[in-house]
C-alpha cells in the first residue's frame, strides 16, 4: 500500500496541478527530475522522428516511402504549433465546471505561465514539451492504417481535427484531471491515450478509405527492412523515455518503468519469434521487431505499476495475442490496416490496460507489482480499466469515422487510382526516395 502511494503520487499530482489550487505553491523545481524529463523528451521525439518514420517508411513500397516521412514531419510541425495555441490548454488546463470532460483555454498561447513556473518538480515548459511529444506520435501512429493511399491534404486536415476532438479530451480524461482519472484508471504512459486511440482510429480509417488497390491478392512486401530495423531500434530506446519519463521524476518509479518496459519488449519479441517459428517454420526479422513493438505498446499503461516478472508475462501475452490479432485482421478479415496499427497498438493497448489492473497487485508472489491503491480491489480496478478501454476506444472510433466521412464529402480523402499506382512520392510530392 505504501508503494502505490509513490506510484500514483505523480498522477495525483498531475491531477491537482490542473486545479486552481495552491497545492504546488511550495514546490521546488528539481534539477534531477528536470534533467531526466528533458532527456525523456528527446527520446520520445526520436521515437517519431526519425524512429517511427523509418519504421513505417521501410514497410511500404518504394514508391510511397517519402509520403510516410512527409506525413510524420507534417504532423510534428502542425501539432506542435496547435499545442501551444490551445491544445495543451484543452488537455491540461482547468476546465472549470466542464473539467471532467475537457480543459479550458486558460493556458492558451502558454500565456501567463512564467519561465520558472513549476509543474510538480518540473518547469512547466518541460512538462508541456514532454507531453507534446506524445501528442505528436499518436496521430503519426495512425498513418500506418491509411498508408499508401490517402491524400496528403486530407491527412493533414484529419490529423488536426483528430488532435483537437479526440486526443485533447481523452488526454484530459486520463491525465488532465478528467473523469477517468478521478475514477482511478491506471494508465501510466498512454495505453488508452496513445495506443488504443491510435489503433482504433487506424482501423476505422482503413475501413473508411478502403483497401489499397490489389490488396490482398498482390503482395506488398516491405521495400527496405533496414529502415524498419533502424526505426525499431530507435523505438525501443525511445520508449525508455516514453514510459520512464512518465514518472515525471528521476526516481525508482522511472527506473522500474524502464526495466519492465525493456523486459516486455524482449518477451514480446521472443514470443513473436517463437510463434512464427512454430507456425511458419522460420522466424523473421519483421516478426521479431513487430513482437517488440507489441510488447512495448502493451506494457505502456502498466509500466509504472508492475514488477519485472509481471513485465515478462505481459510481454509474452502481447506477443501471443497481437500475433494472432494480426493474422485475423489482415489474413482472415482482409482488412487493409496496412501497417497493422490496430492489431499491434490497439489490441496491445487494450491488453495492457487490462493487465495493468491485474499485475499491479502486490499479492502475486514474484509476479507482484506496486500494489493497488488504498480502497481498491482487483475486481474494481479491472472494472475501471475496462471502462477506460471502452470509453477511449469508442470515442476515438466514432470521431474518426465521422471526421473522415465529412472530409471525404468536402475534399476527398483518397488519391486517384492512377496516383496510387504511380506512388504517392511522385504524385503528391514530386520526388523519389532513391536515385541510386
Amino acid at each position: 500500500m505504501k508503494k502505490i502511494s509513490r506510484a500514483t503520487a505523480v498522477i495525483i499530482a498531475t491531477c491537482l496541478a490542473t486545479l486552481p489550487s495552491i497545492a504546488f505553491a511550495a514546490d521546488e523545481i528539481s534539477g534531477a527530475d528536470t534533467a531526466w524529463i528533458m532527456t525523456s523528451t528527446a527520446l520520445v521525439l526520436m521515437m517519431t522522428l526519425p524512429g517511427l518514420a523509418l519504421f513505417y517508411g521501410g514497410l511500404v513500397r518504394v514508391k510511397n516511402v517519402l509520403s510516410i516521412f512527409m506525413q510524420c514531419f507534417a504532423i510534428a510541425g502542425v501539432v506542435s504549433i496547435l499545442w501551444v495555441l490551445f491544445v495543451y490548454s484543452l488537455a491540461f488546463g482547468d476546465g472549470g465546471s466542464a473539467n471532467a470532460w475537457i480543459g479550458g483555454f486558460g493556458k492558451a498561447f502558454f500565456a501567463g505561465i512564467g519561465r520558472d513556473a513549476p509543474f510538480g518538480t518540473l518547469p512547466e515548459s518541460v512538462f508541456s514539451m514532454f507531453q507534446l511529444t506524445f501528442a505528436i506520435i499518436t496521430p503519426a501512429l495512425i498513418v500506418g492504417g491509411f498508408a499508401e493511399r490517402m491524400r496528403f491534404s486530407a491527412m493533414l486536415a484529419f490529423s488536426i481535427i483528430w488532435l483537437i476532438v479526440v486526443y485533447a479530451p481523452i488526454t484530459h480524461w486520463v491525465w488532465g484531471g478528467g473523469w477517468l482519472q478521478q475514477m482511478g484508471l491506471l494508465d501510466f504512459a498512454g495505453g488508452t491515450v496513445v495506443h488504443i486511440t491510435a489503433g482504433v482510429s487506424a482501423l476505422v480509417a482503413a475501413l473508411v478509405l478502403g483497401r489499397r488497390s490489389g490488396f490482398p491478392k498482390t503482395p506488398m512486401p516491405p521495400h527496405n527492412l533496414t529502415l524498419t530495423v533502424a526505426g525499431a531500434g530507435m523505438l525501443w530506446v525511445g520508449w525508455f523515455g516514453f514510459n520512464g519519463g512518465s514518472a515525471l521524476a528521476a526516481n525508482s518509479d522511472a527506473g522500474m518503468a524502464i526495466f519492465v518496459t525493456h523486459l516486455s519488449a524482449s518477451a514480446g519479441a521472443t514470443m513473436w519469434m517463437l510463434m512464427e517459428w512454430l507456425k511458419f517454420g522460420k522466424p523473421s526479422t519483421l516478426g521479431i521487431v513487430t513482437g517488440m513493438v507489441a510488447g512495448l505498446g502493451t506494457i505502456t499503461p502498466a509500466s509504472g505499476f508492475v514488477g519485472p516478472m509481471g513485465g515478462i508475462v505481459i510481454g509474452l501475452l502481447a506477443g501471443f495475442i497481437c500475433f494472432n490479432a494480426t493474422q485475423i485482421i489482415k489474413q482472415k478479415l482482409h482488412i487493409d490496416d496496412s501497417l497493422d496499427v490496430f492489431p499491434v497498438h490497439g489490441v496491445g493497448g487494450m491488453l495492457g490496460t487490462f493487465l495493468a489492473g491485474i499485475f499491479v497487485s502486490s499479492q502475486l508472489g514474484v509476479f507482484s507489482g506496486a500494489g493497488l491503491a488504498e480502497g481498491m480491489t482487483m475486481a474494481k480496478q479491472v472494472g475501471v480499466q475496462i471502462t477506460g478501454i471502452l470509453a477511449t476506444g469508442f470515442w476515438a472510433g466514432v470521431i474518426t469515422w465521422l471526421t473522415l466521412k465529412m472530409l471525404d464529402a468536402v475534399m476527398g480523402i483518397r488519391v486517384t487510382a492512377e496516383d496510387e499506382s504511380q506512388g504517392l512520392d511522385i504524385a503528391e510530392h514530386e520526388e523519389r526516395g532513391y536515385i541510386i
Partner: protein
Amino acid sequence: MKLITAIIKPFKLDDVRAALHDIDVQGMTATEVKGFGRQKGHTELYRGAEYIVDFLPKVKLEVAVSADKADEVMETIASAARTGKIGDGKIFVSNIEAVVRIRTGEKDEDAL
C-alpha cells in the same frame, strides 16, 4: 558476325569471363536479369502474408564475335557455366549485320 547471348547463374559470371579471356575474347556486356523457367523461386513471408518470388536472379551475357569464332565461344560458355543443376541457363546465337567501334569509327570485324 554473331551475337552470343547467354543467360547464366550469377555466381558463374567470373568463371565464364575467365574462360572467354582464355580464348581471347575480351569484350562483353553483362546485364542483371530475372529468369523464369523450370527452376523455381522461393517463398517470402511478411507478417503472415505469403509472397511467392517466382523469378531467379540471372546474368545475361552478350558477346559479339566473328562468325567463325561463334561455335568456340558457345562451347566455352556452356562448359564454364555448367553446374549440371536445373537453372544453368541458355545460350542463343543470332546474326549481327554491322558493328561500329564508337571511339574510332572502325567497322565490323575490326570493331570487335
